[in-house]
């Protein structure tokens, strides 16, 4: 891992940075219970569509406070969604504030969160949604869905693609012909309609966890086919490489030739393809959620958080902060793309 990072840093600066951004996002997702100031489903009834809370260093009299603070806000005009700050009292932002008990990762119990405001004051870093739920907290919880769906989905389709593509390419003949026809059936459908059709085959009222699993499976069923096809092509050509022939001439058993000479030489492509396909899964989940077929409220995913904004002009004009999950999707996708580029460079032995 350390060698990997050193090489990444050397060959491609941008992907090195992207790597750390991705790691950071995943850490946020894992420790959402600790980092987020509020639970994802806590509705602040007095604060629907509140804008991001302003963080101050200077109070009304111009006095400087080392510890940043917020003012309590109040909804003054429902029609125009106007909030006003109440300057009478300051609420300092504190680290490790006390709150309701939560379980981190379902293991450790804690009643302290990373940061927050005590008392009447509220802190909404990215504002709130229609129901007054803190968008920042929901993004962190939503990251769990959106980020893990990519990794798990990719693992499944990688496994299927490598297995089926590898078998098809190395053994050839009838096995190859049969498997490739199956692949073609999967590739024949436009992937978005296939996704909808597969989703439609299951009942609508599933629990969130069931939906989650279903989405992962659907997405990886769509993803593996093209990967298998490409791996088959690579195996076909690598099989004819002279170093594979040399290995055969040395009398090395077939399984070892496949494991040592054929498969590793597909990695430069497959690893890159995988990294580059993670965004596809994130987008796929978003698309399903956007249509209301994905993760169900109140549980957040980046996709279903965005879906509220669609077709709702009031949201777009009065509460643009509700589009922030879109920015996170964008950030993640672009980072994965850069990382994919970097990994391709790394897996080229000529750059070692």
């Amino acid at each position, binding site marked *: 891992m350390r060698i990997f990072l050193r090489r990444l840093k050397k060959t491609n600066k941008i992907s090195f940075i992207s790597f750390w951004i991705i790691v950071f996002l995943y850490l946020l997702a894992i420790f959402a219970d600790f980092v987020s100031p509020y639970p994802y489903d806590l509705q602040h009834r007095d604060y629907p569509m509140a804008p991001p809370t302003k963080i101050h260093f200077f109070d009304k009299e111009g006095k400087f406070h080392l510890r940043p603070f917020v003012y309590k806000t109040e909804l003054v005009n429902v029609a125009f969604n106007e909030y006003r700050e109440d300057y009478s009292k300051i609420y300092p932002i504190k680290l490790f504030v006390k709150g309701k008990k939560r379980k981190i990762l379902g293991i450790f119990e804690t009643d302290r969160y990373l940061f927050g405001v005590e008392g009447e004051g509220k802190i909404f870093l990215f504002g709130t949604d229609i129901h007054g739920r803190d968008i920042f907290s929901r993004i962190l919880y939503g990251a769990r869905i959106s980020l893990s769906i990519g990794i798990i989905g990719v693992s499944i389709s990688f496994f299927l693609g490598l297995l089926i593509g590898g078998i098809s390419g190395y053994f050839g003949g009838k096995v190859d012909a049969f498997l490739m026809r199956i692949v073609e059936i999967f590739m024949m459908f436009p992937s978005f309609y296939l996704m909808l059709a597969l989703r439609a085959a299951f009942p609508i009222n599933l629990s969130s966890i069931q939906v989650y699993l279903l989405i992962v499976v659907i997405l990886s069923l769509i993803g593996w086919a093209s990967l298998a096809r490409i791996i088959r092509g690579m195996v076909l050509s690598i099989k004819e*490489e*002279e*170093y594979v*022939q*040399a*290995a*055969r*001439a*040395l*009398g*090395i*058993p077939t399984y070892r030739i496949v494991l*040592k*000479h054929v498969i*590793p*030489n597909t990695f430069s492509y497959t690893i890159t393809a995988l990294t580059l396909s993670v965004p596809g899964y994130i987008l796929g989940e978003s698309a399903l959620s956007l249509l209301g077929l994905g993760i169900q409220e109140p549980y957040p995913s980046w996709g279903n958080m965005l879906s509220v904004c669609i077709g709702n002009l009031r949201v777009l004009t009065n509460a643009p902060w509700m589009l922030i999950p879109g920015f996170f999707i964008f950030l993640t996708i672009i980072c994965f793309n850069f990382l994919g580029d970097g990994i391709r460079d790394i897996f080229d*032995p*000529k750059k*070692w």
Partner: protein
Amino acid sequence: MEILWKIENLKKIYEVKSEFTKKKVVAIDGVSFEIYKGETFGIIGESGSGKTTLGKTIIRLIEPTEGKIFFRNTDISEMKETHLRPLRKKFQIIFQDPYKSLNPRINALRTVMEGMDEKLKMKEKREKAEYLLSLVGIKKERINNFPHQFSGGERQRIAIARALSTDPEFIVCDEPTSNLDLSIQAQILNLFLELREKLNLTYLFITHDIKVMKYISDRVGVMYKGKIVEIGKTEKVINSPSHPYTEKLISSELKIHQIP
């Protein structure tokens, strides 16, 4: 002289399938010859004559369509791969392009160790690989380098060391110097001769270069369109060719590469 290889009426026919047609391409068209122990038998021919296919078919890297291949009186032409595997250690191959014949992800030392006898201990394998690499002229401090860190000539040396790792008695050399520079070709040719003396090897030396052929091989077969059209002692074939094709080949060669 002891006969090491006896090839009888060897044929290799490829079927080229397309949607509507089945075409047959004859790569080797009924070839018979013998290779004696300790000699260097040359195969000369132009591109597309089937010389590389012949070299690979003899050691069963390509399956023959017809004919018999005797190695030390054992017919290996129809032997099953599992039975053939232990025999494979006795005959090795060196390819033309050292940039393609080494796995880019495996370093020099492990490349050479890979095919060694399973019974050997790790330490013995390592020592043997180090010895072989030093034999072909790769310095000890560089044995952990990957193929791309070596020049073409050095890679060919590593490929030679790999071929030697199974203690073979016979090596197919498939144009091993034609991708190398002249000064490097000279080094590698010297190495081939040196190893033949030291390890008592027999070579099947495939080339399109008559000058190299004349320098290295004892007997030569001239290949043309899948057939061996002429076979004999190298000097005799070069000085008094009997087949018109050989004659044309040699006269072209002598015209543009006069020996001063």
